[in-house]
């Protein structure tokens, strides 16, 4: 259902990005990259208020003609961005939210790997890969 899933480091460089192979990958790079503006804006807007209790899910970042871009940011400022086909109207906000949670859990598992250096690209985690794949092909 998702056409692109990206994990972005605190310093705003991609840790992981995967998009549907049928589409131009660079297009998604640009899309995710520009969405960071909105993410930054949203974080700074809510930044001061209750850091601990804030909602990690940022909601819809921006819609484009064909896609909707959703964001999620962890407490350590790692961002998850998901691009969803906008024709897919069946997808509710709650489902997006739960997908992000799954993604977050999986990312946490990656971080728990003692052989993974925080800040490196996520390249060799099969579990994470599989999870992303499952989120991308799953059709509602």
């Amino acid at each position: 259902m998702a056409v692109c899933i990206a994990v972005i480091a605190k310093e705003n460089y991609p840790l992981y990005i995967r998009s549907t192979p049928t589409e131009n990958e660079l297009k998604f790079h640009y899309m995710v990259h520009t969405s960071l503006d909105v993410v930054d804006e949203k974080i700074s807007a809510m930044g001061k208020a209750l850091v601990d209790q804030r909602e990690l899910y940022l909601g819809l970042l921006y819609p484009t003609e064909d896609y909707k871009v959703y964001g999620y940011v962890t407490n350590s400022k790692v961002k998850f961005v998901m691009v969803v086909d906008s024709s897919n109207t069946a997808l509710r906000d709650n489902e997006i939210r739960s997908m992000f949670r799954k993604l977050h859990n999986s990312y946490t598992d990656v971080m728990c790997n003692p052989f993974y250096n925080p800040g490196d690209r996520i390249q060799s985690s099969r579990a994470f890969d599989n999870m992303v794949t499952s989120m991308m092909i799953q059709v509602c």
Partner: protein
Amino acid sequence: MSVPDYMQCAEDHQTLLVVVQPVGIVSEENFFRIYKRICSVSQISVRDSQRVLYIRYRHHYPPENNEWGDFQTHRKVVGLITITDCFSAKDWPQTFEKFHVQKEIYGSTLYDSRLFVFGLQGEIVEQPRTDVAFYPNYEDCQTVEKRIEDFIESLFIVLESKRLDRATDKSGDKIPLLCVPFEKKDFVGLDTDSRHYKKRCQGRMRKHVGDLCLQAGMLQDSLVHYHMSVELLRSVNDFLWLGAALEGLCSASVIYHYPGGTGGKSGARRFQGSTLPAEAANRHRPGAQEVLIDPGALTTNGINPDTSTEIGRAKNCLSPEDIIDKYKEAISYYSKYKNAGVIELEACIKAVRVLAIQKRSMEASEFLQNAVYINLRQLSEEEKIQRYSILSELYELIGFHRKSAFFKRVAAMQCVAPSIAEPGWRACYKLLLETLPGYSLSLDPKDFSRGTHRGWAAVQMRLLHELVYASRRMGNPALSVRHLSFLLQTMLDFLSDQEKKDVAQSLENYTSKCPGTMEPIALPGGLTLPPVPFTKLPIVRHVKLLNLPASLRPHKMKSLLGQNVSTKSPFIYSPIIAHNRGEERNKKIDFQWVQGDVCEVQLMVYNPMPFELRVENMGLLTSGVEFESLPAALSLPAESGLYPVTLVGVPQTTGTITVNGYHTTVFGVFSDCLLDNLPGIKTSGSTVEVIPALPRLQISTSLPRSAHSLQPSSGDEISTNVSVQLYNGESQQLIIKLENIGMEPLEKLEVTSKVLTTKEKLYGDFLSWKLEETLAQFPLQPGKVATFTINIKVKLDFSCQENLLQDLSDDGISVSGFPLSSPFRQVVRPRVEGKPVNPPESNKAGDYSHVKTLEAVLNFKYSGGPGHTEGYYRNLSLGLHVEVEPSVFFTRVSTLPATSTRQCHLLLDVFNSTEHELTVSTRSSEALILHAGECQRMAIQVDKFNFESFPESPGEKGQFANPKQLEEERREARGLEIHSKLGICWRIPSLKRSGEASVEGLLNQLVLEHLQLAPLQWDVLVDGQPCDREAVAACQVGDPVRLEVRLTNRSPRSVGPFALTVVPFQDHQNGVHNYDLHDTVSFVGSSTFYLDAVQPSGQSACLGALLFLYTGDFFLHIRFHEDSTSKELPPSWFCLPSVHVCALEAQA
């Protein structure tokens, strides 16, 4: 209306639009000069009132936009200024005609117009005309500004009259319906008398009046009118105009709230002079409305007394939040009309600018997002570019840098879209450069050298590729090389193997035309592209300055030591100093380089590329000292591991040199890589002292070079090793050629030698030389050769085995104190025969032929030239490896007393361990020929030695020397004495080699004692003749023979008294001694002699006489009486010569 004005902002609603245009042929330069001056008059305070007029000038304005002038009056061209060149009066009518034509274009809306004529002189100029101004040329036109002010005032008069005209319109008259161009056909046939229609007319007119009020500087009135208009239009659902009224309301409120303006730079200028800045700041604050002061009311007269306007203001003006709501509403109304796309777009842009000031980026982005989707008619490429650029700018304004960069890049791509006939690569490149910050990409490689990579590599790489391509198409290869280098340097980690190959390939293609340099490239836009050194091609991990090779290393003379210690601190150790030293960055390395000598720096590099990397022209970058770098070229295999590279150079002057980095040429790009900028580099200091030039000495020897290398001991490194094979005892001359191969004269030379410790005992001087002859040839000029001779003499132990010596000591042979009367008959003890005298068994042979090695180091300390005056010298070491083959062995040594007590026989069993025939000779005896492996005994008669008479060895002077050592030295001295006396030599005739053989090593205490003269010297005189050795004393039968025994005491103590008995006997030569001679020999007096005690160095004698009664050979044996005193002394001290007397027939 189809052309949007992307620069619009809310303030523009209060401006009057004036078009300034050239007519006829006016150079662009001249036109814009005048245009600029005109533009400077952008706001005018109308006299007699506090109102301010704002003017917006355009030099180009599409007439179809003018048609929307009723909808929003600021779109209406109300003034026209025409600029023209006219040089002759006869052109004048034509010019004037053109002005009229120009006026026609905007004719329906113009309030007034002006014509500025440049160049015309003559009578026409004299005619006073209000609408034409004449100027002789473009320089001489000081009154332009004044004319414009007048012009604007005339505009104001028209505007004011229109405003009053419309505002005072009462409902009694029929109000015309204002409409936009596309509406016109809709109202055909509509009932103009209906209430609905009237209301619509009213509402639209109210809105129009509001616009006019706003333009005329009456903000409050305009607000009131807009409010009324909104009410009216809302009730009749006239959405387009309702939107316009709402927007007008917003604009007026924005102008009120943000006197600083929302349009960026131009806004600030707009307000200058009319209000105080402090007040302006005050008014920004939301909620400060209650105390607001009308900008128009603030004059020199004070606050406007009419309070009614003040009250109205607070009520009518929208709050900042409301402004956005109303904008949203207005835009939603606009969006209902496809033909109002431009209006909607512009409204969005205006709203975004307001939101940007309010810092509400999220909402602003929503407006922008909306603006992106507003579909205008088919846009031209240029318009597309403009549209994307303005979107980018607006995103920038609200802080969405990435989005801004994205649109800028789209605009850039639009510049070179395939549909464009002449692609604007230059513009594309310029726009691409502007996107760099949005992708957090700077073109300075330094920003990437530290820490992790910043930014989104995939998009950055794409951008760089585009920059490369654009700059190449621009026809600037240097630029594309620079960008491509940058791409390769900074994005190396993100490039795939194939991409690396491709980038490298294209870089090489580019550089073949235009090599990459280290010069910063300045771009027209003021940006400079710093050079891109390839610090990752190859990656340098470790830099190490190498010391000179040991033979060339300079050393400081000892005498000058201590000066650098004393300067630092009076303390030997201080924790503070130690701390400081640790922090020293560029710590100096504690060795020196020498001026004029090749110095080396070792780098550990590796190639990260998946193909072979050719690095050319790799050399050192240094400072502090003039340094001639000798570049190297290297080829690194694909993805090599750490690879050592040595860069060399020659310092040309002295001082402190710092190695700052290295330069390379890779793919045709020159790079200067500074070590300071390299991440993760390990260096052990990069500063080293260069001392003045020193000569260089090269030595060559007469001996072959050796493959053996001596174990380096205590820091000595040996440059050359020579080896020689010698037989034990042989000596050889080593001729050393000293060549000065440096550039400085060689002035000083010192030679020392050091024998490496061996287990072998070495006798004599191993190495000896005379330096004087060599020094006579000094100073040695460069290129000259001097010779130096060293004598090598090997003299190892000639005893073959330790155990053999042991055997000898307990042999006991010939140790008996009393000599036998016939030594030749002395029977060698049988056990000697038992020894393997003839060719020894095989295992023994192995022992004998054991080759021993001796090693020594010759140190040549030399100096000269300027380095010498600075107190430096060099040390060259020559390793000498001598293989000592055994020549002869003395397998046994023993002594036999000679007939004389002053002499004795030394018996040596000489064994030839060589494979050649060998002769052995001594000073006195004939040569003895020994075949290979043969052992023979030789006897050497030697005088006994008086060791006590030797001068005490130097070791004696040291009281501290332990007795053992003293004893050792004494023994050595004795051995040397014996050796020199004996002078045993061997010769191998077949090899023409000869040498000495020494017995020093195998003389043990026992043998020595035998070779030593006894301290008690006994002399026996027969008839006054000393009787010793073989000499036979002759005497006559019947005559008494005087016998005298003399004792000289050389021992340090007194000896005696002694009693001696003379025992005569006859030797029958068959082993039988006849002692029964009472009737043949008679004593005159007693046969027993007494000697008194003899003091040290004293002498004593006793006399007696013998009478031989018959002829014959007699022997006299002088025997000591057994008594206690003599027991104390060693028996060898009482060694009296035997006397042989031959009694002859008495002569007649």
